[in-house]
């Protein structure tokens, strides 16, 4: 499927000791929610930091909204302000209260809508008492005010690093709603990029998936396409050995096996007694991750 890129990157390389992020080409589709999926340490946060301009010691070139490069992002406030980034770093000073947190955002961001911020905080059930210290908040509440901050700005691209992790299931659902709402606000203009390892929880809101493994992108496509490309195959114990050669990943029990398979290779299973079902995103991701993971070796 053709699409416009909110972010287009070429030859992005960032080396750490014993780890290298290497992304030859990167495209974040405009107008959609993109999930960056991968193991811990796969390079998700590094990639998001690079896109958001939180790390600048990388090689490669970036293009934002089809016209701005990464120097523009640093020098042109319009570009930087159009990107809302929520990261895992030390966001607030230890003694800052909720009120100071709000005020600093007012100072820092020209497009910060204070009334909207208060409204979102209310929706997310952030404690009312503004004299409370931010560091005293629970992880969940901390994430909520970060999200409120980023959502109450008039941005064109949201980059969220693990937004769902500290939230409870109810709030995750709420988060999905908010992302949907954000995308609809200005039809086709706004994009969201978030990283997660909770694929199942965010599946409802994911349009496009990028799977990162060991510093490299191993699969990227729209979720619908992925679901056409991969299917789940179930079968009986007797056929397991024959199916193992074709299936991506396989989990077996006493009664039978279940695995993910490329649709195009389904015909190789002809003759076996199998049932083919549509795969969920998390099944696909797990299969692909297993295939590439260091943990499992060559499966």
């Amino acid at each position: 499927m053709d699409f416009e890129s909110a972010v287009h990157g070429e030859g992005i390389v960032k080396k750490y000791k014993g780890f290298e992020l290497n992304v030859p080409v990167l495209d974040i589709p405009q107008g959609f929610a993109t999930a960056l999926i991968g193991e811990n340490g796969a390079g998700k946060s590094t990639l998001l930091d690079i896109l958001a301009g939180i790390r600048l010691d990388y090689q490669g070139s970036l293009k934002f909204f089809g016209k701005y490069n990464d120097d523009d992002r640093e020098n042109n406030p319009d570009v930087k302000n159009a990107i809302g980034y929520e990261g895992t770093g030390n966001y607030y000073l230890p003694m800052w209260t909720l009120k100071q947190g709000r005020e600093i955002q007012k100072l820092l961001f020209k497009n910060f809508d204070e009334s909207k911020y208060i409204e979102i905080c209310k929706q997310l059930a952030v404690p009312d008492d503004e004299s409370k210290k931010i560091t005293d908040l629970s992880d969940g509440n901390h994430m909520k005010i970060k999200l409120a901050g980023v959502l109450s700005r008039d941005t064109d691209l949201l980059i969220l690093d693990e937004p769902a992790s500290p939230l409870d299931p109810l709030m995750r659902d709420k988060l999905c709603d908010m992302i949907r709402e954000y995308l609809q606000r200005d039809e086709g203009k706004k994009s969201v990029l978030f990283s997660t390892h909770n694929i199942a929880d965010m599946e409802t809101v994911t349009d496009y998936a990028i799977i990162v493994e060991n510093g490299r992108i191993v699969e990227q496509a729209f979720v619908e396409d992925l679901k056409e490309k991969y299917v789940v195959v179930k079968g009986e114990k007797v056929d397991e050995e024959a199916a193992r050669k074709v299936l991506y990943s396989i989990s077996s029990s006493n009664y039978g096996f279940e695995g993910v398979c490329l649709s195009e290779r389904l015909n190789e299973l002809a003759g076996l007694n199998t049932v083919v079902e549509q795969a969920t995103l998390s099944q696909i991701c797990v299969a692909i991750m297993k295939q590439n993971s260091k943990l499992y070796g060559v499966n």
Partner: protein
Amino acid sequence: MKRILSSYKVFTPKLYRILGVYLGTLLMVLVSLLFMAMAGRPIALLVTAVITASADIFLDLFVFMGVFSKDFDFGLLRNSTEGLKVLKAGVLGDQIRRFLQIAVVMGICGMATYSYSLENGFMTTPFEYGCVIAVLVLTIYTCNTLVLNFTRKHLNYAEGLPGQMLMTAIEGVAVAGVLGLFMKEGGADPLPLLVAVTVLAVTVTYCMVERIGNRYLLSFGGKKMERFGKDNVKKMVIFLLIAFGVDFLMMPVMYLGFQKDIDLSVFLVAQMMYPACGVVLAKLTSYNEGKLPKFSYITILVTGIITMILAVLNVTSPATIDANGQAMTVQFLIANYVIIVGTILLIIALSVTGKEQRENAGFRFHNAGKSVLFMALFFVLYFARVIIICIIGGIAEGDMAGAMSELTQIFTAEGQGMLWLNVVINAPLTFIMFLGEEYGWRYFLQPVMQKKFGVLPGTILLGIAWGIWHVGADFLYYSDGTGIQMLCAQIVTCISLGIFFGYAYMKTNNIWVPVMMHYLNNNLIMVLSGDASTEAMQGSVVSWSDIPIMIAGAAVFWLFALTPTMRGKLSSKKGETENA
């Protein structure tokens, strides 16, 4: 202003804490006023000064801005292009708050002791008294800023307290020294000191704000400034501010001394340290320099600061003593010892520093054979120049035999052996001064100038700048009423020496070569004039007709402008060493 206020408001905890800090220091003043009732009043001023200094540091705990703490990575600030501005405004606000706090407290105490001080002849005029108070305020502010900055950088806050106590104690001694200067009969003149401490206070404030900005930019992975090419500009600005800015700012102080007819030799010693101090500060505040020899750098910096303070004291409270039949100011004598101690420390520092650090700082002794050869060559050329000038002088005056005998005097006259020995012995004891200049000119500025203007034009422009840098000394020290001629002669000398020094440095890539040459150049004058004292350089009369002769003599150095190295372009290898 509005930005500073609003930024500061966000960064600091609630207003009552700031008020608390003010009340706290005022409380301290009450204590000292009590003290004043008991003891002599000028002492009370001193006590207040020390108390204010410590109160400022300890009460800082209540309004501490976490941006200074080691573990804060500037989080949210980095998401906005406004981040740096807000941060700097906030830190500047903090500095202003601290300055006001000290000024208010010292002001109140100053008013309380005002009438007493005037009646008892402690100060003569209200203006002078105001100056003393201002000097105290600025001294405390500067010292405190340094103490806080240092502890915030290296320690977390709880660990910092003992260190701060210690440093406050040292600071107390400094403040007491400042006050003591004025207390005695016919005390020091506060005006030059006020100028000096104001400069220091502004510099320190600037550094404080810049440093936090630097850490902010570093948090992006260390490449932000490099990416946008700002780091080299910043380094250059710091270098120029110190090497030339401090140099020019000391001139009014020097002039005050000149008017009072005080010996100004110590200014020349201090002046020689500024360029190196500029480079050291520029390199230390930059981040892509790799490992640096901190011990050596601090030695250079401290030597520079002490000699500068001595230069100021030389004017504010001059005292002359007689050393070996030669009248010199106490400060000049001390400065000489400081230089010797500094040089010895530098030798120790260099010998314990690793190769990598020395390489990064450009202190390594590259190309030893070629280097020694160049030093010898300079020695020969130096005398070639002297001979040429002698001969031309002889021809002009029609007294060739006289000129020749003058020439042989250099080697044969009585006492010359001692002077030659002096030159040899002093070298390992005083070379820090010559490193002080050459580190700035040849190591730091020359590659930049050559890159910007081409090899030869860059070298010549550097010579002109180097000559102009001497302007204060030319008018107030070297010459007697012929400042302009002296300046022109100086520029000619600097361009010619600059060409040869520059050539030697390019050929050897060894900073010690120009350092040694510079040493010889300055010290052989004593041998030439047969006079070991500083008077050899002082108060000479230069006429316009001397300048063409100088140019002719310097031709031996100008010849090197014709070498392929000077005429050519920078090779790529050279370019690499420049960036390093």
